[in-house]
């Protein structure tokens, strides 16, 4: 069974509290007063604190541990300001966090894979490997981290994947030196990033996204500063719509850490959502998810409307079927010039035009088979697939975890959302068409699941949307050994393409609640 990251309960909100109050806190003084009670050397420095770099979430975890385990006294605003200061002055460069953003974005169905089997077994079995990879430390600090682990969790070396090896010796002699080399404290990337200019944040952004179970959306996001004494704190509004026509209206706030780590909290159509984005010049990318159900979230990309070159972020939907008139929405920035579709695709009618969004009724002929970018003036990009017959579909994610919950317990249910990704065949081989509607069902994944009647207990999938809702938490007296409503299910998508039936299978593990849900899984 592949292992994915997991989690259910809401993490700490990074982007909240009073920006002004946080702005007034003098962090160097606070650290000199409160951290130095325990962390100080003969020269009055803060040796441990100064030898580590990590993400805002990484610092949040450390500081919260100081509060919970070591009785450090901080107000909520002090903690937020401190985490901000530490992430700004001892953070990760964009290049350094790139490899493991999935963990920050809370893509908890990610199945991690690391080159070193030893690393995976030793350091990525209780938590994600991302938690490790998203840190930079001196050799001494990697070593002290090993000591912290065994001192804090002394049964660790007796557990599976602990007792089969000399855990401490391996961790100190092999893992810590390797980490000190691969994830060194002093790194060029960080030096360069510290010196580089920061991209502007305030202004208008054109935003495109895709929410499994709901579909594509696009919006204009307006970002304004919160005043001089609230550096890096912004107010946001969102105004846009989903592909099904529903309006998307939102309002909230965001904080920029380390010059590029965007953490937002917005209420969209009445639902509280979090944004975890990385700014890259005049674009940004990341994920926006429901605050207390982070399994429900959208991939998001955005481009500044009032800056730089025109860009195309997405074509929604990403495909045209030959001979069928359809509306395409081109989302991007600076979409002012002439609309140029690939040869064989005709723009029949322009329905709407704005710098961030162009809606066109289009028709594709056989000549256009294949995938293309589109162009509007100087902006080029997006993906438009023109197809005749679908060749196959696949279930995404191919492997997902849902968790039982509710039933009076603290942990809510964690649902799973599936989509059918379609492919077509062209002269150049197979190409991606995009997400297509499908009919969804579940069945026992294997003989064990059949015998234990997992299908009857684990939960239900909505045939139209691919949204799986697990059953209640707690022991079920109807089940053998009164076990809980866990299960191992095959998730089946069916659709028709070119007159024939297409189907695909994914796997869904329904398992128990997760009681601890740290900011980095």
């Amino acid at each position, binding site marked *: *069974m592949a292992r994915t990251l997991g989690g259910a309960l809401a993490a700490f909100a990074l982007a909240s509290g009073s920006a002004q109050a946080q702005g007034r806190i003098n962090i160097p003084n606070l650290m000199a007063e409160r951290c130095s009670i325990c962390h100080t050397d003969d020269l009055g420095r803060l040796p441990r604190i100064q030898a580590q770099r990590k993400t805002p979430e990484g610092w949040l975890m450390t500081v919260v541990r100081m509060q919970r385990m070591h009785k450090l006294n901080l107000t909520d605003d002090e903690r937020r300001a401190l985490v901000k200061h530490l992430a700004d002055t001892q953070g990760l460069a964009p290049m350094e966090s790139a490899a493991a953003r999935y963990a920050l974005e809370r893509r908890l169905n990610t199945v991690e894979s690391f080159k070193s089997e030893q690393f995976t077994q030793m350091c990525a079995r209780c938590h994600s490997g991302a938690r490790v990879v998203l840190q930079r430390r001196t050799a001494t600090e990697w070593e002290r981290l090993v000591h912290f682990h*065994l001192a804090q969790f*002394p049964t660790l070396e007796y557990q599976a994947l602990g*007792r089969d090896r000399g855990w*401490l010796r391996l961790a100190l002699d092999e893992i810590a030196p390797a980490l000190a080399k691969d994830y060194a404290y002093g790194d060029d990337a960080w030096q360069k990033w510290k010196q580089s200019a920061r991209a502007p944040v305030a202004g208008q952004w054109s935003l495109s996204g895709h929410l499994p179970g709901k579909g594509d959306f696009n919006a204009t996001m307006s970002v304004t500063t919160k005043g001089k004494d609230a550096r890096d704190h912004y107010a946001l509004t969102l105004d846009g719509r989903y592909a099904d026509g529903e309006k998307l209206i939102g309002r909230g706030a965001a904080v920029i850490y380390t010059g590029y780590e965007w953490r937002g909290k917005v209420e969209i159509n009445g639902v509280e959502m979090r944004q975890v984005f990385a700014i890259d010049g005049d674009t940004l990318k990341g994920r926006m998810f429901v605050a207390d159900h982070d399994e429900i979230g959208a991939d998001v990309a955005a481009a500044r409307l009032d800056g730089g070159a025109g860009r195309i972020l997405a074509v929604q939907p990403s495909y045209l079927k030959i001979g069928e008139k359809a509306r395409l929405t081109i989302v991007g920035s600076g979409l002012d010039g002439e609309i140029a579709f690939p040869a064989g695709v005709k723009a029949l009618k322009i329905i709407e035009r704005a710098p961030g969004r162009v809606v066109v009724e289009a028709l594709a002929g056989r000549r256009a088979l294949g995938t293309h970018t589109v162009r509007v003036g100087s902006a080029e990009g997006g993906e438009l697939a023109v197809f005749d017959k679908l060749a196959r579909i696949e279930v995404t994610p191919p492997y997902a975890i849902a968790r039982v919950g509710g039933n009076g317990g603290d942990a809510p249910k964690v649902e799973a959302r599936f989509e059918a990704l379609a492919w077509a065949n062209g002269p150049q081989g197979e190409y991606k068409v995009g997400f297509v509607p499908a009919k969804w069902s579940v069945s026992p994944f294997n003989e064990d699941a059949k015998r234990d009647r997992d299908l009857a207990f684990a939960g239900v999938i909505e045939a139209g949307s691919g949204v799986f809702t697990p059953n209640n938490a707690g022991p079920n007296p109807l089940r053998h050994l009164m076990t809980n409503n866990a299960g191992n299910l095959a998730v089946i998508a069916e659709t028709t393409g070119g007159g024939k039936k297409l189907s695909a299978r994914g796997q869904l593990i329904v398992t128990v609640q997760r009681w601890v849900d740290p900011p980095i899984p």
Partner: protein
Amino acid sequence: MNIKTTLALSVLLAAAAPAARAVQPGELADNTAAPLIAGREYMVAPNHPNQLNVLDLADNKVLKTCALPDAFGPGSVQISPDRRTAYILNNHFGGIYGIELDTCKVTFSARMSLDAEERAIAVFSVALSPDGKEIYTVQNPSKLHVDRYEVQAPRLAVYKTDAGLDARPARTFPVPRQLSLMQAADDGALYALGPDVYKIDPENGKYEVAVPLLNWKRPGYGAPDVLSAWAMQLSTREFSALYTAPKFKDGQQDLASADFVWGVLSIDLKTGKHEIADFAPLTEIYFTGTRSPANRSHIFTVLNGLRKYDIKAQKLLASASLEHAYYQVNLNRDGSRVYLSGTLQDVAVYDAATLEKIANIRLPGGDMSLSTAQIFVR
């Protein structure tokens, strides 16, 4: 299959979580003064919130319930050689307590941490010398510096059983890491289960490998995995634990195609001789397995089901399904009855010949979780 075993113990060790509110000595204890009767057979079983039950096996009833000090977990019990005192590793692996069974009085206590700057725990390791005068445990300490933690070498700590409350060790010796279950042999040698089985001289701390496990050179087999949290004091005077191991198809030693087997390691505490015997293919997980005192070739295993195997024939003899999982399987002295304990709050009694259920003994209080139950004749 290997993955399943490994998952099982991770879950198990993670389950050793803080318990409910600790019961104060004297509170909730029932019938504490009932003395045990010489020649009669009893079982002790610790459970939540933090108590020790004494069960009378003549009528399969709870005779008394002693409240324990501090906090529960893991509840690893050893009975003194004179069968008057139960020593229990408890308080989240952090302390050992001696409980006089006739009176429920706490006659001994020792904290595993020896000073305020250290945090030390013992992982299921508690044993008694054959004369009952000394308690052995392996403590895993870490030094708590003001701004960092530092793992220290484990130590064998030897306590005098008459050292009273807040006892300090009489002697300590450095020992290898990852030691857990222990039992002392009739000749005084201490056997400790770790990556291998070590034989330790508790007088001077000298140790040697008595039975290689992780480092065994068993032709045709890969390294075994020993999964045990229960040091059972068997009437046969055997120190025993189950193992799983990959048995290779051929000289290629390919793990993917290997067959996994269950086996039992038995060290005879009277002679020091040991035996390693496979008895079944690994088709399901067991947490414990106990050989019958009536027939050494019969072994009972338990987790989600109760099974009875013939070791020599490597054959399943009988099987019973259970209402819920039990972690520990014990037998009474004549081997006629099987006692299942651990997990929740009832002890299930089965006929050893037919595996038919005889009784469920419901304990007062909560679940036993990882605790060790022991059967003995007073």
